[in-house]
């Protein structure tokens, strides 16, 4: 059986020293081993940006696509081969700006993949512009007088889409993050894990210390019920989205694969492509 070391490759990440993304990389490697995967059974599909490079830093099949489109590529992979474990991954700009349409619809569609966002409230690779999750007043190269837009409340949005697994992690809490990713992979349906992953170079506001000070651990809220969507929504609003842990989980919701009429319970990769002649003749006769 593979260990987390088997999911390490020999590529040195080009992230800045201290980048939050290193922990996310390690957490995916550990969670993959913990759920019993072999490297070839995992496909990591990523977007564009610093965090998008992650698919190249894990010993597994990996596809680094185009900006904002990791989710549709990942859904295509999963539809083709339902036996693969598929993780889509990227940053807040990738998933909540250019790719937001896909994010909402992937949650709504509920194909059984795990989506991990490394949220640092800034555009890092383009060297410091505002992001959809940047706070109001946040000063960046593209908002020199401070951002006048309010940040998106991603967790409220995820709950509103009907997403059946919503969680939020913090990149220094490796153990918790590994557990959230394991739960996400094991969840039957779309699972969404937003990870606060500080950018040490361009974001001098939302630092490790800042998150440590502000994040509320849901495990410490007495009576918090992860199956109660209303409570989840209220808690997020109360804490301005700054919570960590499993926020909401719906175990009854059917995944797209389970719900789609006629969809094969075996990977489509094994199909014989040639139509049998009788079947072809039947199809032709329908046009006569």
């Amino acid at each position: 059986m593979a260990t987390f070391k088997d999911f390490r490759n020999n590529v040195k990440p080009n992230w800045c020293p201290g980048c939050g993304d290193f922990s996310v990389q390690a957490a995916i490697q550990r969670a993959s081993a913990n759920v019993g995967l072999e490297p070839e059974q995992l496909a990591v599909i990523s977007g564009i940006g610093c965090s998008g490079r992650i698919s190249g830093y894990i010993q597994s099949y990996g596809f680094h696509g185009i900006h904002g489109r990791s989710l549709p590529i990942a859904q295509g992979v999963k539809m083709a081969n339902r036996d693969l474990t598929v993780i889509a991954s990227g940053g807040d700009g990738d998933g909540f700006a250019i790719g937001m349409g896909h994010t909402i619809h992937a949650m709504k569609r509920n194909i059984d993949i795990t989506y991990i966002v490394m949220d640092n409230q800034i555009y890092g690779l383009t060297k410091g512009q505002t992001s959809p999750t940047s706070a109001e007043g946040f000063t960046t190269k593209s908002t020199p007088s401070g951002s006048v837009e309010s940040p998106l409340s991603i967790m409220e949005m995820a709950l509103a889409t009907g997403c059946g697994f919503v969680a939020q992690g913090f990149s220094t809490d490796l153990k918790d993050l590994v557990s959230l990713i394991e739960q996400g992979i094991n969840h039957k349906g779309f699972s969404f894990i937003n990870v606060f992953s500080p950018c040490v170079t361009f974001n001098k506001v939302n630092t490790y210390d800042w998150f440590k000070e502000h994040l509320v651990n849901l495990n410490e809220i007495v009576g918090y019920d992860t199956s109660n969507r209303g409570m989840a929504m209220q808690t997020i609003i109360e804490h301005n989205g700054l919570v960590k842990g499993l926020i909401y989980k719906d175990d009854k919701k059917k995944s797209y694969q389970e719900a789609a009429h006629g969809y094969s319970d075996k990977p489509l990769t094994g199909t014989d492509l040639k139509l049998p002649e009788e079947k072809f003749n039947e199809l032709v006769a329908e046009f006569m």
Partner: protein
Amino acid sequence: MKGGIWMRDQLSWKVGGQQGEGIDSTGEIFAIAMNRLGYYLYGYRHFSSRIKGGHTNNKIRVSTNEVRSVSDDLDILIAFDQETIDLNSHELHDNGIIIADSKFKPEKADETGASLYVVPFTEIAADLGTSLMKNMVAIGATTGALGLDVNQFEEVVKEIFGRKGEKVVEKNMEAIRQGAAYFKKESGGQIENLKLNEADGRRRMFMIGNDAIALGALSAGVRFMPAYPITPASEIMEYLIKKLPDFGGTVIQTEDEIAAATMAIGSNYAGVRALTASAGPGLSLMMESIGLSGITETPLVIVDTQRGGPSTGLPTKQEQSDLMAVIYGTHGDIPKIVMAPSTVEEAFYDTIQAFNLAEEYQCPVILLSDLQLSLGKQTVEPLDYNKIEIRRGKLDLQQEIPARGDKSYFKRYEVTEDGISPRVIPGMVNGIHHVTGVEHDETGKPSESPSNRQSQMDKRLRKLSNLKFDTPVHKKAPHEEADLLIIGYVSTRGGIEEAIPRLENEGLKVNHAQIRLIHPFPSEELRPLVESARKVAIVEHNGTGQLANLVKMNVGHAEKIHHILKYNGNPFLPKEIHNKCKELF
């Protein structure tokens, strides 16, 4: 072209009225019944981008021989409103007839010499129980005019209404009978010159180009289709959502065309043939994905059913103006194949071919159709099961990949002589590698090194230098030295084929080339034909002569190339091609 043999071997019929009042189904029932009798049909719908209201018509050509074009004129016009008469009478020749519903007190349009017969379509139908059956009365009147036996429609009526019970079938048959009887009485017996020669009685397929593409996709082993609805492509996804579940597959209606193209890339990367289809606006959104397919060498097949552009343009009208966009669209240099079937039969075989080529050359393939080919409904010669061939190139799902001890990646982008690298899919043991839209080395790891860039670019760009493509140009070139070479692509073939005998009758030697492989451009195939012609006419549906410019660029001889363009939304009529060609001499 009045009277004589022409009249007896073929007939042109049109039904018109307000959109949403059953005009399509009237045409459909008439056409299916005629198809069953063994006639060849060609149907073209005029419709608007709205659900109800607005003039719509369905023009159907019936012939004892193969037809692939809208006819020049009209023999019978069935009118459910005055607008239909006003808008379409100019197509009627002097021996033609209008059969109109008495309900709207029809009046002949001034310019027509055709005769008007008034039949109470709505009244007869209402007396039988529901005015909805007025279209069946109209079909009945048609059978009266053509001297057809109404019972020949019974089989079709049973198929369509059988589910609603015996009574409904009988009522509809009665509507046809009464329509026929009323017309015969009104016209004092059948109109002799409209009587058709008997057809051969063979049953043939009757389908639109989109049906053939969808059936081709199924036959190619497609098991997944992510797509976003758009005119005139939606029928492809609508067919496949009905059929794919029988094969374990499915269609996903995506949030947009970017998702459709990238999802298809994901599926093809994972080893399952996936199709997506769209029209101009969707293709514009897919451009970045096409580049991704190119640089990651992931097979991708996109059908582009061209319609009037730019922007939303003329969404329900014929045009061929995406040519430059599909060849050159997407930033950067990539290998790409653009195919252009010119008949419904070719649309079927070419769709299968598109998937084979996409896998063999590991590149995007765009199958160009146009609204006329995609939606024109016509009789199709039998499709040959034995011609269905599946080729997957260098993808070997059974191979055992040797282990590499050092965690090095599989060389998915190995530099090879033919430029095509070995391909594996996720899940295969020892096949792990990386795929990226960033320039990469042989294992897929990002690399900006100039020498690597050079070798990977060269590798990709040489892949198509040995492209094997069956019949890149459909040629009908009987003359060694021709006065005129006519070149077209996609659905203009039918109109060109009808114009040629007329030009030859007038003493011109005419060759014909319909280009089926648009990119890489078949310059060597075309050059001798261009060189041996005095003049070249390039017939296409756009305003700038996109195909003509391609020919000039690739073959040269700009001095003898003439543009014959039409971009008002309607398909070329044979007589228009005939006249424009004649003007060149």
